């Protein structure tokens, strides 16, 4: 058990709470950097995909986990990012600029979505974002001159100058750079006044407002930042899937993104990363499962979504804090080894909290 002796208020908002963290995160970074030297191409590709999911997960985590705004339509931002990026790339605009344009454009759309979304909360918000994502999907299918409609759109190969980013090794490094800077940026957002305002809004809008936080402004910025991160993930994902079609960004993907933050653990950046790892490896696990199942079970058409649903329900009922919450419990078990008591982490008894006021 580590007790940090605080002698300075700034210690509360430091990125690294103690030296151990610096050591372990450096180790993690070194391991990630060394992967291309001994892992095969296939695994590098999978890791790059996990990094991309992680960026989208960070985006959704900032909105849902930290600001408390649920979005059932984040696949739309993924789609907007992907299509904008490959459209501008197709016009001959360099990789970095086109990616920046797609991030800015997604943020802009996120800000626009925030205008109707600000008027509603809870389920209304979830449904408004859902409606938004369905409308975006229809626009992607019917705006043929830009998106290619149902025929889809070929994503141009990425390159910076003469260096092609297409090989899995190079693309792995690109994704690694983006994911680690996303983590750094979001960590810094979260320890800034803005991030603290976001958490305050999540916990209680009325008390946040009475502390002088501008609700509309905070929520709009949260939407913009979240959409921006998701758009960045979309731009990178475009290269990963190579060919864009409107139904690659449907409701199922939105749910998958939500599943990611819920299973990872709401309200922690760790959760977004764990969720991304989980979502990234799940299809492989399911493919293995299909191989080993009897013929009749393996042929079920909706097996994957069904298993997603099952996991979602199980996690929400048994471990609402997700993988990160479970990890905290395991860690405290080892830290307090002989003295660990299960009741330390016992869930408090819950009562129905009504939203009605009559």
């Amino acid at each position: 058990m580590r007790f940090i002796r605080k002698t300075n208020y700034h210690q509360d908002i430091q990125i690294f709470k103690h030296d151990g963290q610096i050591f372990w995160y450096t180790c993690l970074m070194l391991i990630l950097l060394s992967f291309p030297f001994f892992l095969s191409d296939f695994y590098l590709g999978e890791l790059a995909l996990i990094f991309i999911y992680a960026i989208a997960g960070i985006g959704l985590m900032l909105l849902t986990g930290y600001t408390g705004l649920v979005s059932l339509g984040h696949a739309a931002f993924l789609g907007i990012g992907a299509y904008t990026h490959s459209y501008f790339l197709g016009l001959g605009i360099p990789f970095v600029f086109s990616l920046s344009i797609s991030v800015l454009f997604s943020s802009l759309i996120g800000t626009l979505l925030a205008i109707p979304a600000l008027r509603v909360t809870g389920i209304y918000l979830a449904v408004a974002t859902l409606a938004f994502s369905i409308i975006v999907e229809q626009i992607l299918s019917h705006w043929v001159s830009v998106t290619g409609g149902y025929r889809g759109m070929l994503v141009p190969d990425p390159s910076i100058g003469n260096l092609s980013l297409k090989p899995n090794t190079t693309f792995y490094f690109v994704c690694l750079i983006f994911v680690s800077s996303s983590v750094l940026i979001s960590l810094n957002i979260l320890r800034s006044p803005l991030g603290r305002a976001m958490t305050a809004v999540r916990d209680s809008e009325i008390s946040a407002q009475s502390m002088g936080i501008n609700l509309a402004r905070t929520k709009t910025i949260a939407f913009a930042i979240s959409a921006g991160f998701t758009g960045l993930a979309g731009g990178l994902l475009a290269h990963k899937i190579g060919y864009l079609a409107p139904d690659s960004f449907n409701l199922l993907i939105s749910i998958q993104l939500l599943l990611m933050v819920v299973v990872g653990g709401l309200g922690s950046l760790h959760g977004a990363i764990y969720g991304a790892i989980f979502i990234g490896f799940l299809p492989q696990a399911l493919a293995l499962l299909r191989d080993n199942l009897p013929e009749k079970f393996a042929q079920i058409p909706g097996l994957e979504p069904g298993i997603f649903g099952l996991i979602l329900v199980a996690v929400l009922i048994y471990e609402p804090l997700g993988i990160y919450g479970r990890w905290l419990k395991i860690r405290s078990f080892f830290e307090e080894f002989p003295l660990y008591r299960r009741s330390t982490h016992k869930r408090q008894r819950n009562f129905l909290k009504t939203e009605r006021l009559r």
Partner: protein
Amino acid sequence: MSFLALEVLLELTQLLISGVSQGCVYGLIASGFVLIYKATEMVNFAQGDLMMFGAFLAYAFISIFNFPFALGLVAAVLAMAGIGALIERFAIRPMIGEPHFSVLMITIGLGFIFRALAGFIWGSEPKSLETPYAGKFFDFDGLIIGIENIVIVLGTLALCSALAFFFKTTSLGKAMQAASQNQLAAMYVGISVKKINSITWAIAAAISAVAGILIAPVSLIDPQIGFIGVKAFAAAIVGGFGSLPGAIIGGLIIGIGEQFAGLYLPPGFSEVTAYAILLTMLLIRPHGILTSVQIKKM
């Protein structure tokens, strides 16, 4: 000239009729949403999938086990009521007191499970439910009304009056109203709120089964038809979440709007009509047409 006017009038009536019958189905599913929301303050996103499952159950009873039509319908509705109560007991009750968002996610997960289950049991090819009235129609001088449309409208009317009667007169209905207004107070006067919640879920699931059976002759049954639940959800919000007549009105607005957009607007618009209406509604009047006053307490 007058012939042309007649033609246009005929077309409009035709659209209106199919819009109304489609809207009734949306309204029925929406009233399932509203019932559950009123009683438990939870949102059941799996309502559309329950509808799909109910239609499949009716198909199984009638076409596979060769039940007589009426008996098959009753069996399907009762089975769905049982499933609804089971869902409440094992998935929803453990979630009391958790954030609403978690419950929403749970029901989304349940929807996926039901879809996979239906695909597993009945396969993903569309099935048609054999009804005594399928394919028959009335012809009033060129105005063609399918009997299935009439059955949908009549079925909705009958179900709504039955619900109204149930809530107004029976003691169980009154107990449900009491629980939906204030659970704690209802508990103090001796109403078993847990039982009421189970019954509410059972009724909502049964209603969605009826909706599924009504829509089955019009559109074939396959595991994906549950997605119209999303449109029904839009209907519930447009009508004012928490009001049963509002749910039907919202359903009608969206059903009729969709039919007209399908004919008069370029392709693609009819799919987004429901959501465009929803977003506009959220902009002008976020709490729907028939608002039951509910301000969030924080």
